[in-house]
């Protein structure tokens, strides 16, 4: 029996083709190292998405189905009781996930489409167009967002479509600023110059040359903007100016059931009823913030230690 010699050859190792990790492998490696807060955030987000997608299968009653018993107590046929006109609160919570998250997501996507493309155009073309867009955004940002949204809702009325457009436009100012500032340093790179000399169009330069290089800050910003938009829409609905009934929505559910808090001494479950949708909003924003925090940590390599 002869030992096969464990021959080591440096040349062989160098000669090997270095395989690139696919993004799935990178994600697996990073997930193993992820802190508990990030895991918590990811699991919460996954549950919310599951509930939002399968809402009609999970809800025991219809979204706007009205039962004769209004303000019914917890338990029995209605898990969390019924509201002031006899709609099942548990079912409305489930449908609310779908409506509230769906509308916030659509708004954030639209605001990134507007702000991101204008920001890229401003950074690439520079000159008077850049100046014009930047100064315009400065003026828009000088008015507090919620106040501006209230003013525009007075004029256009509060339908879901106008809500999405108004908040997306107002929010796109921040996306514009970030996109512009991160892509300004990429625009001056040699490979962008090369693409321009090759005769590539503006669209190609935006999508293929610049966008891949500014993705990490934009993805983190997407998370932050989503939770901000989500909170703004919840606040507007809470004020009675956002998503209108009978569409189930967490912000207006808090508003409708808020008076029950007064009865905490006699029936704690009744007092907790308005806290559930409010808590659902809070939990999702906490989860998104945790995940964004972790994502920024990985991509920037920053760990707050100098």
């Amino acid at each position: 029996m002869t030992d096969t010699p464990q021959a080591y050859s440096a040349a062989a190792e160098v000669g090997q083709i270095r395989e690139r990790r696919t993004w799935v492998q990178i994600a697996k490696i990073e997930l193993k190292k992820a802190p508990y807060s990030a895991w918590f955030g990811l699991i919460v987000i996954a549950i919310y998405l599951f509930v939002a997608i399968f809402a009609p299968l999970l809800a025991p009653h219809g979204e706007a189905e009205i039962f004769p018993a209004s303000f019914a107590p917890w338990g029995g046929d209605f898990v969390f009781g019924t509201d002031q006109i006899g709609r099942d609160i548990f079912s409305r919570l489930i449908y609310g996930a779908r409506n509230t998250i769906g509308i916030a997501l659509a708004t954030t996507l639209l605001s990134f489409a507007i702000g991101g493309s204008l920001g890229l155009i401003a950074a690439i073309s520079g000159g008077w167009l850049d100046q014009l867009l930047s100064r315009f955004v400065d003026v828009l940002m000088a008015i507090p967002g919620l106040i501006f949204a209230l003013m525009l809702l007075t004029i256009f009325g509060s339908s879901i479509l106008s809500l999405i457009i108004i908040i997306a436009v107002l929010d796109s100012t921040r996306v514009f600023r970030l996109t512009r500032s991160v892509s300004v340093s990429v625009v001056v790179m040699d490979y962008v110059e090369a693409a321009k000399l090759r005769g590539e169009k503006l669209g190609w330069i935006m999508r293929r040359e610049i966008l891949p290089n500014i993705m990490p800050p934009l993805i983190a910003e997407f998370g932050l903007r989503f939770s901000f938009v989500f909170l703004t829409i919840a606040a507007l609905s809470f004020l009675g100016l956002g998503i209108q009934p009978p569409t189930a929505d967490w912000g207006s559910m808090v508003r409708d059931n808020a008076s029950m808090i007064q009865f905490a001494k006699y029936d704690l479950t009744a007092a907790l009823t308005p806290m559930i949708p409010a808590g659902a909003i809070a939990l999702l924003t906490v989860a998104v913030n945790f995940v964004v925090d972790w994502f920024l940590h990985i991509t920037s390599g920053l760990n707050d230690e100098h």
Partner: protein
Amino acid sequence: MHPILGTIIQRLLLGLVTLFFVSLIIFSSVEFLPGDFTQAILGQAATEDTVAAFRAELGLDKPAYIRYFDWIGAVAQGDLGYSFSGRSASGIDRSRAVVDLVAPRLGNTLFLAGMAAIVSVPLALVLGITAALYRNSFYDRSVNAVTLTTISFPEFFLAYLLILFLASLWPVFPSLANVNSETELIDRIYKCVLPALTLTLVIVAHMMRMTRAAIINLLASPYIEMSQLKGLSKAKVIMRHALPNAWAPIATVIAFNLAYLVVGVVVVEVVFVYPGIGQLMVDAVTTRDIPVVQACALIFATTYILLNLTADIIGIVTNPRLLHPR
């Protein structure tokens, strides 16, 4: 001329220009109203004469730029126009001047915001600076975790949590802040405790995190390391070397968060039924009372711009590099 003066004048002019454009945007909101909005306000039964008189009062027969200068001139003299509510189809006009609606409520809002600011500014600065000095300690981590959580909460969630525990389960404070002009100061403060506490929780979290980041950023600069290596005491490093450069970021943080308070006050006023300008604006939006909405938006935006301008100027005035021009 001293270079600082030049910079300040430049900033003030820039602020004025911003204010001009903002007023232009707020004014032009009327332009986007649908053509039949007079009928919506006066009712379907409005006669031709009433509609014509109402349109003439709004100056809709004049070109837009003349109306803008009329409007902004009146606003500069403290005349914000008349509310849309209280008008009827028969032409009887019981509408109230917007100034009379806004003025008492503006005082209430400033009182509430001031109460929250007096508590939260010193608290946030102390928390932020200590967290930065002892960073990565247990104290720093726990303060960080708590503030990240409160930032993520919507204002009304915090407000109802406080009501649940401090007004409903253990009735220590009233859950409704129904003050009026006759309320005594002590009683007023007592009734405003819960709304002010809600605002404080929101503001402190933001302000503390921003202060911490600003100070950590500063402590990382080479000249601080140099002063430490010289063997100066910790107190001297902070008082003599760090603080002069820290005033600018701290002023920015405070102004930014007071400006944030302007927005946060809207939701909190509605939760606690506090008769402030935020609630007035929400009511006006529901009834589509444009003159009131415009007046409130103008007040909010002006406050916001002025606060940011103040922060800018404090940043310039306290900057040691600008104080000693070469």
